[in-house]
């Protein structure tokens, strides 16, 4: 099934390029179009480069997709500058598309109006984990939302605090100071993490609040998921929140978080995918999964989106860029889903995936569909 879709997409893209591309590329795509059905079908599917940026949550996957498509002629540049910068890059047109983990709000959509209608393409789910660097606690601690909120509020300052010990029978906790590490840039990862804190702590909700960046009561800031991971790695006694892939890459321990049903759940393919099971997706696909119900659902999962103008050509990009972006997204929603899984992200549930594909199909160039 997947293979057929892929071939079909490849073939149609090649045909499209046969018209659009010029010079020597033309001949190449003609010859490959003749041999439909082989792996080489997709050669010369891409005609140039995509310059994108934003979410560091999603960066490992986008980079992987980009490197897989390199052999097909794509030069892919993705700047991991944070979701806020991804949205800003789409707003001012400096990026071909932006990555963000929290859907753009109405105000942001209005600000981006000059680029035309903005569409959201969800790409996959990931888990925001509370990762820590404490000698002696290599296994997953159990933490509930309120405890985590109190740590980030600076009210719990020692690893052997009774609030932590109470949830972790049998674990020897050291009498060590907790160093909080948080993001310093505008981040969708932050918003996802804080919505978990806000759901269980009134004090957090009323104080710092839930947003892409807040006034932190305590802790050290760092830029990007990578920056937070680096600080946690360097600092004994540190706790920070990162996308799971960054925690796994750096071999961090991370906590099992208590969900709505009262169970402590570790983020796994199953528990993260479960977060998308009953998600209600509005027509414009601006959803958030947050603390979903379900016995074995990980409570701090997040979707991530690619945002872009529906008509890239009207927003000033070339036809080649528009077609490259469309092909990139199509790849991501087909073959790319499996690759995301290999990097510790959860593929989109079928219902969301279909809607996402429909958005990609509806992309236009100067009012005409991109074939």
């Amino acid at each position, binding site marked *: 099934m997947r293979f057929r879709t892929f071939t079909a997409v490849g073939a149609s893209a090649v045909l499209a390029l046969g018209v659009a591309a010029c010079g020597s590329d033309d001949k190449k795509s003609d010859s490959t179009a003749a041999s439909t059905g082989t792996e080489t079908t997709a050669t010369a599917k891409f005609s140039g480069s995509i310059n994108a940026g934003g979410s560091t949550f999603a960066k490992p996957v986008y980079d992987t997709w980009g490197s897989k498509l390199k052999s097909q002629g794509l*030069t892919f540049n993705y700047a991991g500058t944070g979701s806020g910068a991804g949205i800003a890059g789409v707003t001012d*047109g400096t990026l071909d598309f932006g990555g963000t983990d929290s859907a753009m709000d109405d105000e942001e959509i209005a600000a981006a109006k000059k680029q035309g209608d903005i569409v959201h393409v969800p790409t996959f789910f990931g888990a925001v984990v509370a990762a820590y660097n404490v000698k002696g606690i290599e296994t997953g601690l159990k933490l509930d939302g309120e405890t985590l909120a109190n740590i980030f509020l600076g009210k719990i300052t020692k690893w052997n605090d009774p609030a932590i010990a109470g949830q972790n029978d049998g674990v020897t906790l050291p009498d060590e100071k907790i160093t909080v590490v948080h993001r310093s*840039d505008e981040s969708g990862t932050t918003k996802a993490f804080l919505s978990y804190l806000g759901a269980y702590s009134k004090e957090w909700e009323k104080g710092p609040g839930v947003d892409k960046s807040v*006034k932190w009561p305590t802790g050290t800031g760092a830029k990007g998921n*990578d920056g937070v991971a680096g600080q946690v790695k360097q600092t004994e006694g540190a706790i920070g929140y990162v996308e799971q892939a960054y925690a796994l890459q750096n071999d961090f321990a991370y906590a099992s978080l208590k969900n709505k049903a009262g169970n402590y759940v570790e983020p796994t393919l199953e528990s993260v995918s479960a977060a998308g099971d009953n998600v209600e997706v509005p027509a414009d696909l601006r959803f958030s999964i947050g603390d979903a119900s379900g016995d074995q659902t990980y409570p701090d999962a997040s979707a991530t989106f690619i945002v872009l103008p529906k008509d890239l050509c009207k927003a000033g990009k070339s036809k080649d860029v528009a077609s490259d972006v469309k092909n990139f997204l199509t790849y991501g929603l087909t073959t790319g889903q499996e690759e995301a*899984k290999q990097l510790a992200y959860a593929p989109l549930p079928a219902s969301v995936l279909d809607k996402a594909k429909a958005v990609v199909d509806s992309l236009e160039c100067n009012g005409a569909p991109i074939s």
Partner: protein
Amino acid sequence: MESSTATVPNPDAASRLRETLARTKTGSWLDPWVKNALTGLAGLIFVLLAYFLIKLGIESEPVFSKYGFIDFITKVDWLPSKDTYGAGALVAGTLITSAIALLIGVPIAVATALFVTELAPARWRGLISGTLELLAAVPSVVYGLWGFLFLAPKLKGVEQWFADTFSFIPFIGGDVSAANYFITGLILAIMIIPIVSAISREVMATVPTDHKEAALALGATRWEMIRTAVLPYSRAGIVGGSMLGLGRALGETIAVAILIGGATAGVGDSIFSQGSTLASVIALEFQEATSSPEHRAALIGAGLLLFAVTLVINAIARGYITRAESRLKRAERDAKKAVAAAERGEAPKSGSRLSLPSIPRPELVTTLRGRKRVDSIARGWVAGLTGLALLPLALLLGFLVIKGGGSISWSFLTSDPTGAAGAVANTNRFLGDAAVTAQANDLGGIRSAILGTLEVVGIAAAVVVPIGIAVAVYLVEYGEGTWFGNFVRYLVDVMTGVPSVVFGLFVYITLVVSQVGGAPFAGWKASVALGLLMLPIVINSALPVLRLVPQQLREAALALGVPRWKVILRIVLPTAAPGLVTGSLLAIARAAGETAPIIFTAGVATALAGDPNGPLNTLPAQIYADVTASSSAQHDRAWGAALTLVVLILLLSLIARLAQRRSRIS
């Protein structure tokens, strides 16, 4: 022409002279054109700077009109997510880090200058000052890299101990954050030592030997000689040098952005808290700023503020340095007069500047043994502080060579970075099976970064070096003494003080966001930003060289009827050529290491791209991206790229030195 032609009227020779004169005179019609063209280029500086200020003024207007100037710079409340922008915490952070830099940097720099000029054995002098100049050639991003990966983690324990032990002192104590004001100030101190030291050295070297010998002859110890003869005379120069160092510290961006943490909402409780400076917040937030016009206006406002402060500080610094120079000249004149008077057998006039009222000052230590002890202690301190100045350099270079050398290989230099992170995720924990294990990713090398740097810097140099030299030629050949010439020279000085991050921001709002040339981020836009930075350096380094061209050469040529433009082209420029090459190469070397203007303009790229109208990778951008990553493999690549960059810059400086050696006028 032989002088005989004038004395012996020889019809043949006279006609030959007429012929020659006629030939040399050809093209004199070009003179006004050349003059106008050069004047136009000089005027371009005015247009550029005026546009720069007006653009920044207009773009930042919303934030100043919303908050008012005073509120904007004093309110401590910078929260982009809530759309409130009070830059108080940024102003405070800028002041705190600069103050720490001066407190640590200036005494050390002055000590090194004293050591080199007064105490060091002659053969050490060149070595020490050369080493300090090396310190000045290391780019900001490399200091950031070293500070972030080596200094900050290594010093954290010491800082915590210090904070706990001395917590009774205000602004010390509490939890030490890995990124903080102090560590930033420390790195800034290391960065300003070469500047302050170089200017102090220059001033100290001009203290009249007579004065020093007089002090020694009166029985003063070395230290007393330094205190009574050297320091009073060089004080103004030292203050001026420190102010220049302050100007540098205020505008320093990338090293600060890496080390200060980026907290903007409030001022930290202690010097070990994290914060932000005006410059760092611009570098860290510019990419997020466009979804809110007010945020962008606030960042530009911060840039404008930074520019204004730097301008004032630099003006004060120049005032002090000029005063120091004129005072030395005056002292020399007075000394000569006094000597002449003494030779005529007159008694020195009381109240003359040469009378040293400070000598019979009551001393705390009066016994000879005590004075000798003070002398050796003071000399020990000076030598010790000099060692302290050289220590970070040794550590930095050591790490650079060991770490960087370890990453560099042929394939490292000839493959492109892949853009991948250090390792594939250890996904078995996520997938719930043990099949997938962690494996190293292929990170690739830095080929695209090397070539991109060469391309960006090359374009900037090709355009800016000729313009800069042309403006300098105008200033020396036509503008000397005219109001316009003085005005342009003043503007060039103003331009020298613009922090590079502000140039980056300027190019970002004028060329990148408006997508001039069809693409937003582009290599040539980075060239523009670097060019703006290089232009005043090229002009200022060309001015003294052109002035050194002997006036007689010009007069001789002009007397022969050679048109002015030909004099410039055939006499002035060739004579000054080695010096011009040196100055230009040093300006290029300086630009090659700049990071802030590049991340604003060249975008993010990993693949090799020759097209300057698209994103280009560069060494500074590659280092900046890799420092902030968490994987040690990326850190290794950053070290390798840093070593490559430093070697590149040193090569340029070395060629510059060689060119200078060929110079016949200096």
